[in-house]
């Protein structure tokens, strides 16, 4: 008897659970249908002739921290308030979780809008037919976006996404430590830079922090040396042809060896993570790191007492290399954008336009969520260092996206693996260029 009761109870519980599940699953169309019933009456007075059929826009982003997360939600809420037939379903994911989830999502389930960094991964997605060509859709408002940044989200002449944040990599340095070492002005040339490293070393200060385990911070240093030595056209050519056995590549490697010879890196750099690197600078132990616009916040987060360097932190652009073909203003940079999935409804692209409006982007700039790419938002950036980054971005005639993002697959990984071997003294410059050429041929 007892067991029969138990089974009955189990069946009852199961059926309730099923009912609850199906109710939950069905509720999203139901709730989106409810406003749609009211929508015609709401939309009709505003003069919109389009039949306001209910639409759900699926948006995945990785801005897990506030104020960014709340700002994104507020922008979505403002849009749905003006367009009652549209429901924006936001899924907030942590960076790595996002990449994993997206790589295991089938085309039919692809989100309408999602985080993108442009470049190689986006090109792969486009080749696999997972993205929507929005070139024509944004033609009316693409001039409101910084053209260099917009180009990162184009592939084979077609636009697949829109940026909202773009910065430039440069040296973040500790002004107090520079002063202590007797360096009055940030170095303008690579020779001056090496001299500054020597001075810091002489004053008992660790000149430069890199991350041997995470690899990518020093890859940017190598990229800049290639860019300054060979120039933007030569670098673009290397990426395009996959031939890295070039003069610029080996010469840049030679400059790294010159730097290595000064033993300039922080204690434990070979096994250091990026967080270790940021902590070394944030705690005032190492004098410099070469990093993007996010550096101050990570330094603050990783430093003891979460204070960072405050006013002592300064920024200077990567120095020029004597005899190099690259312009002093050229940069290496990257940022965040939103790519458009293949199934996206027109409302998703309309929302993208709204998201990139001066008003919304000014708010993101004010909150330090990013460095907006919308023209006319520059004045909202108040921090002097970020203003310097923004000026750098504005001056750059040529902007190279981070090499490991600009390229695909094996080559992308090889940039990290090959260049770190150079910095750790385990490869020659020629071996690096050969390894990259091999990886590009895969």
């Amino acid at each position, binding site marked *: 008897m007892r067991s029969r009761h138990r089974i009955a109870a189990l069946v009852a519980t199961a059926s309730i659970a099923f009912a609850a599940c199906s109710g939950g699953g069905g509720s999203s169309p139901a709730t989106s249908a409810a406003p749609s019933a009211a929508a015609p009456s709401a939309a009709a007075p505003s003069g919109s002739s389009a039949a306001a059929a209910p639409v759900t826009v699926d948006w995945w982003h990785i801005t897990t921290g506030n104020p960014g997360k709340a700002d994104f939600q507020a922008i979505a809420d403002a849009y749905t308030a003006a367009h009652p037939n549209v429901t924006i379903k936001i899924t907030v994911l942590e960076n790595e979780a996002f990449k994993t989830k997206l*790589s295991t999502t089938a085309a039919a389930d692809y989100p309408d809008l999602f985080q993108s960094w442009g470049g190689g991964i986006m090109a*792969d*997605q486009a*080749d*696999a037919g*997972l993205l929507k060509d929005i070139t024509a859709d944004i033609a009316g408002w693409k001039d409101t976006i910084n053209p260099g940044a917009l180009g990162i989200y184009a592939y084979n002449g077609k636009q697949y996404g829109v940026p909202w944040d773009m910065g430039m990599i440069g040296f973040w340095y500790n002004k107090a430590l520079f002063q202590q070492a007797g360096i009055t002005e940030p170095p303008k040339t690579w020779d001056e830079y090496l001299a500054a490293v020597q001075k810091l070393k002489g004053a008992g200060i660790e000149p430069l922090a890199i991350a*041997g*385990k*995470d*690899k990518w911070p020093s890859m940017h240093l190598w990229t800049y040396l290639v860019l300054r030595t060979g120039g933007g056209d030569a670098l673009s050519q290397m990426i395009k042809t996959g031939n890295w056995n070039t003069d610029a590549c080996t010469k840049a490697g030679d400059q790294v060896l010159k730097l290595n010879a000064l033993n300039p890196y922080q*204690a*434990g*750099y*070979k*096994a*250091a993570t990026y967080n*270790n690197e940021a902590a070394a600078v944030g705690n005032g132990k190492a004098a410099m790191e070469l990093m993007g616009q996010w550096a101050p916040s990570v330094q603050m987060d990783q430093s003891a007492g979460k204070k960072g360097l405050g006013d002592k932190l300064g920024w200077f652009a990567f120095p020029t290399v004597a005899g190099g073909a690259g312009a002093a203003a050229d940069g290496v940079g990257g940022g965040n954008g939103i790519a458009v999935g293949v199934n996206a409804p027109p409302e998703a692209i309309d929302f993208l336009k709204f998201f990139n409006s001066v008003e919304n982007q000014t708010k993101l700039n004010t909150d330090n969520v990013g460095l907006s790419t919308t023209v006319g938002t520059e004045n909202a950036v108040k921090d002097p260092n970020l203003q310097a980054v923004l000026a750098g971005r504005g001056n750059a005639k040529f902007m190279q996206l981070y090499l490991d993002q600009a390229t*695909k*697959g*094996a080559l*992308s*990984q*090889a940039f990290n*693996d090959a260049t*770190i*071997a150079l910095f*750790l003294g*385990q490869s020659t410059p020629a071996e690096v260029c050969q390894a990259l050429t091999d990886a590009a041929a*895969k």
Partner: protein
Amino acid sequence: MTAISRATRRRPGPRTRTRWLTIALFVLPALVLYAIFVLLPIVQAMQYSLYKWNGLTPLTDFVGLENYVTAVNSRSFTISVGNNLLILFLSLFIQIPFSLALAALLNRRFPGRAMFRVLFFLPYVLSEAVTGIVFSLLLQPDSVLDSTLTNAGLESFVQDWLGDSTLVMITLFVIITWKYFGFHMIIMLAGLQGIPRELEEAAFIDGADRRTAFRYVTLPLLGPTIRVSIFLSMIGALQLFDLVWVMTGGGPVNASSTMAIAMFKAGFRSHEFGYGSALAVILFLFCLVVALLYQRFVLRRDTEGAVTAYGG
């Protein structure tokens, strides 16, 4: 005698049949899961390994065994295999004897014995990721270990524990041993407790000293346990991933890479899923061959014993 057994064998009673039906019914879900989540992926990996594939596009670029040739010729992969074998041999010759010695010690009666058993077993409870993060913090420059050494006047012993290419595998091995010696110790302790004390006492009466008794009485009887412990240790060494990934990511450069790390990097970092699958198949074959050979030649007596016990 034979007639009876033949008769019972020829006509399985209705009870036997229902028993088989019950067994089949209960085993079926597990078998289905095993087929879907173990056998199928293995076959799929073998298929993928014959293609050049980035994981997104359809499987079209058939390259035959090229991925395997690349793997054998790849310096980073041969370093990885070497590291796996290094950990395997160090485990066999240092970790297992150490665990055995501790087990023998903790099998004696002395105050605080239970506490020591728990303490030594404790590291095994931690996940590899947690262990990795904790040791990364301890081994950072100027962190706990280095400052302790400095304060003890042993400044010259301070090393770049995870950054030195020649030292990193030894550092990792010490941490692996720290994490797993307690596990092997408990297994052997259980084995030791299954050996009747009378046998050792009889040896003492016959004039054996402690050492001889351990060598000729206890150790042979502990054989099956030790062989299982070695087996687990070998498979663990071949599959080593979590701890190394968290602590060094296989670096500096490739100095601490393992087969599993090379596989992960090829697949999920370089998006060479074909090549990554080839590495996975190689790793699988490595484990399979080691496991089969070991079972065939070393565990033979033990499994035979088990089968006899079951049949009898």
